[in-house]
């Protein structure tokens, strides 16, 4: 118990800020706040940093988003991953440091992506990129079959197997993209960096109440009855975000954009024999067949879904999912139909790929917002903030989100009315200023969004 007894009166331990969730977005918020002098406590239901949905992230680092600010934020994120040790203040982590695998990122020009808008956004933001012809792609990735297979179908549809005579147009290649080798470790790295600056983390604890005094948030209560006090509480609870919002008075009701948990699967398929995808391959976004893929240890293709319209969506209760699926983020079970859908789609592009009979991969949850754009915002309860609804597309932005949230919290606590006069957040590395009101909970649904993992 952390409650301390003074003269017979039990005093709750006090912090400047409590962060709920030690994932890859919660940890950098703690880290940035600590650097600003905040005494923070991060609480997490699991046993270490990054063990929730962060662990199941594909940890793709790419810049193609459907909005200018989306591209800018992602491109800013590149700079953190490319300079990871410095970002962490050269902290030592006994588990080692996560590694940014700078493979470069291919966005195939297809009807599945509004790549012209992406290219325009790249030009405005100043993202380095190359245009690749079909011949150039073939030279760089000989295993790709560059026929066009659009529209995206499921293998249950007989037309899925039709041969194509149409060809794709080419690709936009972003040399600074890639993926992070170990997403869980990256969150752990940030936790260690935050701890050096005085942040505290406690694990295996569950928040059951967010307390307030009628005017503002005052702290959280854990399942075992322990109470921690703070005048700032930040919800970074991933797939549990809506449950935490519902615990805080008026917060859930005050959000025009809501979050909920979506079941998602990623698959592993061996690279074709003779092709060293792990060392020679690129992260590829392939809207033509509704998937993305990147190299994985064991010379595997790691295949994720871009949520094409023909795929069913399974919205679940996160507590039921994690309780019933044999353990969070690891040994959950893939569905046979989705295994076939994602692997067969990938095999349209990589026809020499072999597909094992036994599904292999990871099933976990996205914390999804109504328009698949995150909510980085204050709330209707003063002192209560949220960094939620990352919808499977914010991993790469995590360090930027940490900086944005810390600045927002600090400014709001010092009197900024972020709802009326939204924070104008300057991106440290690329110098561009973005309107943080873009991520407001009060926004109307943003129809510029892709409404998918692409954000």
């Amino acid at each position, binding site marked *: 118990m952390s409650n301390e007894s003074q003269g017979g009166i039990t005093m709750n331990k006090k912090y400047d800020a409590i962060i709920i969730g030690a994932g890859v977005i919660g940890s950098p918020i703690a880290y940035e706040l600590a650097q600003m002098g905040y005494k923070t406590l991060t609480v997490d239901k699991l046993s270490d940093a990054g063990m929730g949905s962060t662990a199941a992230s594909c940890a793709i680092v790419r810049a193609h988003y459907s909005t200018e600010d989306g591209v800018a934020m992602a491109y800013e994120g590149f700079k953190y991953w490319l300079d990871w040790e410095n970002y962490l203040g050269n902290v030592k982590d006994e588990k080692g440091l996560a590694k940014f695998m700078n493979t470069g990122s291919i966005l195939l020009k297809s009807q599945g992506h509004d790549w012209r808008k992406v290219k325009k956004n790249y030009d405005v933001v100043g993202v380095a990129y190359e245009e690749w012809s079909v011949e150039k792609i073939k030279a760089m990735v000989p295993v790709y079959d560059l026929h066009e297979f659009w529209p995206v179908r499921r293998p249950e549809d007989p037309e899925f*197997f039709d041969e194509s005579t149409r060809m794709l147009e080419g690709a936009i290649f972003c040399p600074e993209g890639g993926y992070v080798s170990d997403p869980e470790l990256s969150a752990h790295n940030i936790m260690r960096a935050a701890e050096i600056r005085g942040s505290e983390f406690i694990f295996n604890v569950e928040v059951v109440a967010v307390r307030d005094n009628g005017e503002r948030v005052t702290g959280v209560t854990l399942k075992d009855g322990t109470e921690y006090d703070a005048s700032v509480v930040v919800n970074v609870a991933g797939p549990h975000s809506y449950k935490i919002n519902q615990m805080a008075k008026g917060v859930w009701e005050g959000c025009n954009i809501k979050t909920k948990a979506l079941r998602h699967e990623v698959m592993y398929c*061996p690279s074709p024999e003779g092709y060293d995808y792990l060392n020679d391959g690129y992260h590829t976004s392939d809207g033509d067949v509704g998937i993305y893929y990147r190299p994985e240890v064991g010379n595997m293709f790691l295949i994720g879904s871009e949520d094409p319209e023909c795929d069913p969506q399974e919205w679940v209760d996160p507590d039921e999912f994690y309780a*019933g*699926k*044999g353990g969070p983020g690891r*040994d959950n*079970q*893939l*569905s*046979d139909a989705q*295994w076939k859908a994602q692997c*067969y789609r990938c*095999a*349209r592009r990589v*026809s*020499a*790929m*072999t*597909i*094992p*009979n*036994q*599904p292999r991969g990871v099933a976990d949850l996205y914390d999804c917002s109504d328009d698949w754009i995150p909510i980085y915002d204050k709330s209707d309860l003063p002192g209560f903030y949220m960094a939620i609804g990352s919808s499977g597309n914010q991993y790469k932005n995590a360090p930027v989100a940490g900086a944005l949230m810390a600045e927002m919290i600090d400014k709001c606590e010092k009197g900024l009315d972020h709802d009326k006069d939204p924070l104008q957040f300057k991106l440290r590395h690329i110098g561009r200023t973005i309107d943080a009101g873009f991520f407001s909970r009060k926004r109307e649904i943003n129809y510029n969004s892709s409404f998918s993992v692409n954000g």
Partner: protein
Amino acid sequence: MKIFVCVKHVPDSAATIRIIEPKEIGENITFLLNPYDENAVEAAVQLRSEIDDTEVIAVTVGKPAAADTLRSALAMGADRGIHVITEYWPDSIVTARALNAAITQDGDPGLILTGKAAIDSEGFQTQFRVAAMLDIPVATNVGAITLHDDGVEVTCGQEAGGELIIQMSLPCVIGAAKTLNTPRYPTLPDIIKARKKEIKEMKFESLGIGPQDSHMEIIGLRPAVEERRKQFIDGSAQEAVVELIRRLDEEAKIKLVS
């Protein structure tokens, strides 16, 4: 020569099996080609490449969904399939009778391959019953097959790491072990090709077999509780690695290959 491969549609070993009272399992999970049967299919396909005019026929007994498993075998290289369709759980006696009837009706088996066991029921009976019904020899846990003019030589794994080398006449039944080969997995073009291969469907009744022929009945199912026991290893990283290798080797019997 006709090589028949008996395959079974089984739950994925990674699936969380839920028991539906009193004696059925929830089927909203992944089912797939029994892993040992993958080795049998692979062996059949390899043997076909060695022998002229050889056809590989995958045979299964199971519910309509078992057709997916036949398609997997076809995608791995089998030429055609036979599906004996049943809506109820057949015991190994009935399964063997159905396989025997299907194979006999198709005619002239040169060799019958199957996995050494099915990972669901692990009855270890069907292959022996099929051989007995056909009055032909059988060997199981086979890690090597060499065809000769006058028969086949197989190497069977024995307990305590020994091997038994057996000479059999053809036709015979061979139960494949994991060590027999590394199954080739299909590419999408293989899967597309398999969609067009013939699967002959037969009803149990048409083979003169019915539920009354079963001599075994499942009267209950209980979940197997797998206990994961954490072990902690103290000491430096170097000492811990040495100790981990020792425990894997001596306690878990896992041999590490450098």
